Structure formats: structure tokens, C-alpha cells
């Protein structure tokens, strides 16, 4: 053991000499030029703090003059960004319910709300195994809703365009979480993926149906 210890020490000392050999008169008492050592990588706390303090959330930037009817929905959606608990998602869903009652006569808005509802239910049931893009889609649907509600004079055609756009995203998302992409889902036992898919499928077909009906009736109306 003793020899071994000497071994490591001499190995180490050689290495240290290699690394930290001082060519210019090692450790002499001759004073060097008294340069003040330059301050190295300082932490730029103060200047960075200003940057960080700027509000960056997209949703917050688009402030409307009057309080939007979507205010509560937005805040519970942002809360979901921070924390995906049953309580937070439940808040979001109950806000959807309120809005569904309020906008029951506006088919486009109603359909988008339904889309939101299916997404939230999907996330609630899958939690950790939900697709990482799910929250992106929730945001996107919200933006669609927000656009429509913020412009009361929007024509039905314009509204339809937005709704169809979101539906397309939803379809693409469904493809992603479908059987082709296994993702994290099958890893956990005890969760009935098929049942969840069924729920989404049902919601989706309902949405499609309504959208089609709506489009037909508009065509007839013209």
C-alpha cells in the first residue's frame, strides 16, 4: 500500500510539474510587474436582470382594451403551462363549460371550444404520457378563439377559415399520437389508450359533423 501511495503521489507531482511549471524563475522572490489581475468573467447580474424582467409571454402582450371573455380561460391555460395537475386542468374545463353555454349559438366558437375540451381531457387522462406537443395545440386553439372573439365583425367565412385551420392541426396531432407513433404511451401499464383514442375520435367526428352541417347551411343560405 505504501509503495502504491508513493506511486500516485509521484505520478501526480510529475503531472502537476508538467501542467504548472513556471518557466520564468519559479517562485522567486523577485517581484513581477504589479499588474492588477483583470477581472474575469463577471456575472452580469444587473444588466441581465433588466432583460429578464421584460414580460415575454405572448398571450400577455396582446392586451385588449376591454377585458376579453376569454380572460379566465387564458389564465387557466397559462396555469397549465406551469403545472399540469387535475385541479388546474379541471379549472380550465369548467371555464370551457361556461364559455360553451355562452357561445352555444356561435357554431365556430363552440366547435373550437369543443376542440379545447377534448385536448384538455386527453391531457388530463394521459398526464405524463401525453404527447409533448399537446400544450402547443391548446395554445394554438386558444389563439384561434381569441382572434374570433376579439373581432366581433368577423365574417363567418373568416371564422370558418380559422376553425378549419385548427381542425387540421388537431388532425395532424391525432396522427402523431395514433398507433403509428408509439411514443411514451405504451410504456405505462394500466392506462387504456384505446379508450382515450375513442373519446378523441368521437369528439373529432362530432366536430367534423357540425362543421360540415354549418358549411352546408351557409352554402344554402347564399
Amino acid at each position, binding site marked *: 500500500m505504501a509503495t502504491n501511495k508513493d506511486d500516485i503521489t509521484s505520478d501526480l507531482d510529475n503531472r502537476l510539474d508538467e501542467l504548472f511549471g513556471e518557466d520564468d524563475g519559479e517562485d522567486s522572490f523577485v517581484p513581477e510587474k504589479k499588474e492588477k489581475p483583470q477581472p474575469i468573467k463577471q456575472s452580469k447580474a444587473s444588466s441581465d436582470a433588466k*432583460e*429578464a424582467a421584460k414580460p415575454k409571454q405572448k398571450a400577455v402582450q396582446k392586451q385588449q382594451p376591454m377585458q376579453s371573455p376569454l380572460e379566465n380561460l387564458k389564465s387557466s391555460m397559462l396555469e*397549465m*403551462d*406551469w*403545472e*399540469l395537475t387535475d385541479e388546474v386542468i379541471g379549472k380550465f374545463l369548467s371555464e370551457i363549460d361556461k364559455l360553451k353555454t355562452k357561445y352555444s349559438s356561435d357554431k365556430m366558437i363552440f366547435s373550437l371550444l369543443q376542440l379545447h375540451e377534448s385536448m384538455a381531457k386527453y391531457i388530463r387522462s394521459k*398526464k*405524463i404520457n401525453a404527447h409533448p406537443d399537446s*400544450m402547443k395545440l391548446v395554445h394554438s386553439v386558444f389563439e384561434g378563439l381569441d382572434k374570433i372573439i376579439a373581432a366581433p365583425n368577423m365574417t363567418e367565412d373568416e371564422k370558418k377559415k380559422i376553425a378549419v385551420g385548427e381542425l387540421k392541426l388537431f388532425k395532424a396531432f391525432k396522427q402523431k399520437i395514433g398507433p403509428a407513433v408509439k411514443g411514451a404511451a405504451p410504456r405505462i401499464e394500466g392506462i387504456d389508450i384505446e379508450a382515450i383514442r375513442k373519446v378523441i375520435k368521437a369528439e373529432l367526428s362530432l366536430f367534423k359533423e357540425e362543421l360540415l352541417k354549418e358549411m352546408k347551411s351557409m352554402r344554402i343560405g347564399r
Partner: protein
Amino acid sequence: MEYTIELNKKQFESIENILKEELIDLGVQTVLLIDLAGNILVNLDDGKSDIDIYSLAALAAGNFGAVSAMAKVIGESDFSLLFHKGEKESIHFSKINEDLLLLTIFGKDVSLGFLRLKTAEAMRKILEII
């Protein structure tokens, strides 16, 4: 006696696998498992990262200690969410046990809500191993 972290090869491997499955696959940029002395136990990244992880670990350990002390000053035993939001990248801290800290660096594409679920899951699995 001061806690010392001694993990064997197999434990290191299992932890790396957990962190890869739960976090790297979610799209985070870098994951660091560090101890509160500032040592790095595990570091993983998405292959596109080029950060000075040793300085980061030293500062994170110090920062975490300071924040815990702040919690005690205001009568909290700990803060449950430690998160720094940047314009492009953000850092999330989670305390695994008295000595270990999990640092996650992630971009705008990752939702914090999901990340928190995933780190909680990763933590649960790591605690089963160590």
C-alpha cells in the same frame, strides 16, 4: 457523517437511461444531476449543446443553497418550483433528496407543465435506484 454519494457503474447507467427516456426524449437540451457540493454525477444533452457544465453546476449548487436558506428565512421548508426563464433557454431545478439536484435546461418548445411532470417521474425512478 457527511453524506457521500457513492454509486456503482450500474446505478450510473440506470440513472442515465431514466434521464434520457424522461427528459432528453421530451426535447430538453441538457440534463445535469449534481450534488450540493457542485459535483456532476450525470450529464446528458441533445448533442447540440455546448455549455460550461462545470461552472453551471458550481453556481447551481450555490444558488440552490442560497434559495433554500431564503425559504427558511421566510418560514418555508423549501420552495417547490425553482425555475429561471430566459428568452430562448430556461433552467428548472428539482431537489431529489438532501444531496442531489436535477437541473434541466430546455428551450421554448418544451412546456414547463410537462417538464415538471416528467422530472417528478424521473425523480421517483431515481430514488428507487439510489
